[in-house]
């Protein structure tokens, strides 16, 4: 029997209690302290509902766009050889490494009406920064690596025999990809989608600079938490946080179930 079980587990539990368990207990218990009426008033407020709709809606669209392009990028990085492939592969993780505030001000500068890309769209009357469109752009940046890094290992391990068999049987390449490859990586795409979505819903730093933060229009749920706290409405802030976390949790549960279902069907 190895030594150190007691101290190691004891320290782990103490540390987790202090940093995770007790703080999260406050998040679960405090929304109700001003009564259920207050909780409901905060949650059913149009501003809260709009913020939640924006956070989840923009996250969903951003994750969907990344699902398409992330799959293409993963495919290209795994299957094709071209100059700078290794460099691009390493750069996939940039959104993990680059602080969110840094990404946030850079995106705001690019998509502002006088920015490199913003100025291309401004004459057409299309505004990107300071609208929900800007929120979505920031969430695409944030979610990108989750998608690619979920699909890459599955594509690498994919058995080439099935593809070759299909080709031998006369299926053209596109049909092989559509009917053999895509179903095989579908669970990985969904897993990446879930991770990107979960991250995007809670994202703050990269969004607030480009969002413009107009109440009911481009104000995300995490920002509303900050605003409620600034008003010393602890119960209100906790309520928004609690609801945000609950919806995320249910959404991820549903996506995981779907992922299980797809991979089981793929195997049978």
């Amino acid at each position, binding site marked *: 029997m190895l*030594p150190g079980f007691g101290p190691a587990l004891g320290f782990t539990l103490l540390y987790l209690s202090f940093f995770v368990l007790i703080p999260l207990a406050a998040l679960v218990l405090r929304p109700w302290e001003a009564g259920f009426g207050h909780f409901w008033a905060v949650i059913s407020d149009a501003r809260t509902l709009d913020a939640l709709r924006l956070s989840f809606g923009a996250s969903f669209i951003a994750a969907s766009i990344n699902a398409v392009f992330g799959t293409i990028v993963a495919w290209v990085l795994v299957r094709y050889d071209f100059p700078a492939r290794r460099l691009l592969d390493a750069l996939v993780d940039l959104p*993990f490494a680059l602080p969110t505030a*840094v990404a946030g001000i850079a995106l705001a500068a690019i998509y502002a009406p006088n920015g490199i890309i913003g100025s291309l769209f401004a004459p057409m009357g299309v505004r990107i920064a300071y609208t929900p469109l800007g929120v979505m752009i920031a969430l695409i940046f944030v979610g990108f690596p989750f998608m690619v890094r979920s699909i890459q290992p599955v594509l690498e391990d994919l058995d080439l025999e099935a593809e070759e068999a299909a080709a031998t049987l006369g299926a053209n*390449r596109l049909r092989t990809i559509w009917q053999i490859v895509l179903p095989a990586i579908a669970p990985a795409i969904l897993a990446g989608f879930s991770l990107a979505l979960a991250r995007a819903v809670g994202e703050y730093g990269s969004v607030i600079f480009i969002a413009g933060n107009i109440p009911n229009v481009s104000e995300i749920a995490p920002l509303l938490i900050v605003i409620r706290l600034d008003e010393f409405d602890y119960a209100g*802030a906790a309520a928004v946080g609690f609801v945000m976390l609950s919806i995320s949790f249910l959404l991820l549960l549903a996506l995981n179930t779907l992922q299980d279902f797809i991979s089981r069907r793929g195997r049978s």
Partner: protein
Amino acid sequence: MSRSATRRDPGWMVNALIVVSVIYFALVLLLPLGTVFAEALRKGLGAYLAAIADPEAQSAIWLTLIVTAIAVPLNTAFGVAAAWAVTKFEFWGKNALVTLIDLPFSISPVISGLVFVLLYGAHGWFGALLDNYNVQIIFTVTALVLATTLVTLPFVARELIPLMQSQGADEEAAAVTLGAGAWRTLFFVTLPNIRWALMYGVLLCTARAMGEFGAVSVVSGHIRGQTATMPLQIEILYNEYNSVAAFSLASLLAFFALVTLAIKTALEARFADDLAAQRLR
């Protein structure tokens, strides 16, 4: 072997997909990265250096280093202890414990800051108690450390757990049988075996700790020169339309992010077997 597929895909398809990927990379990743450096240098090297030499910027840099220097060792000690307990022993509730360790990754940074205000803020559960003893936590460096530690808590542990799981406890058992104590076993048997994964975890933890924004933003109070870390100082400067100064500070963090990516890629290439278990994040 897999790259032979290049030959089987029609040429137009290979080219089209590579072009699409490169454009997506350029638009989504490279453009923001380049913008940071371009905006920082827009008024010349002099303005750039002046922005970084500014006393408030210097104090922000120091504060970021201090907070990181406390949070990362804490989470490293935690990661080693948690991985030791989880992988070398069997006990009830182990899976729940591992889930709990991963939990901070799925929480919004803003919520990670919020929970400490709910506990230690003026109207927090322990607010009155702390007030009695004249202790303030929220809007001080202590709060910055708490929030940063919570956000970066899983990095080291989740890197070590899969590796130590696959290594088992045989070598440790042999060392103990030969008369080594717990600390000796840890330092001379376990740590050398996990050093690259440990370094990898510490690297990611450090990068995130230095760049954390949402959680520290909630608990900091944005007191210039006192509780403004680099990302917060960037926010303050940007909101004052001092774009060059904001991007100058941001360029330091962006440079650090690139160094992180380079070390990370080198570690992954050389010690793939140790790190393969957990590549995401």
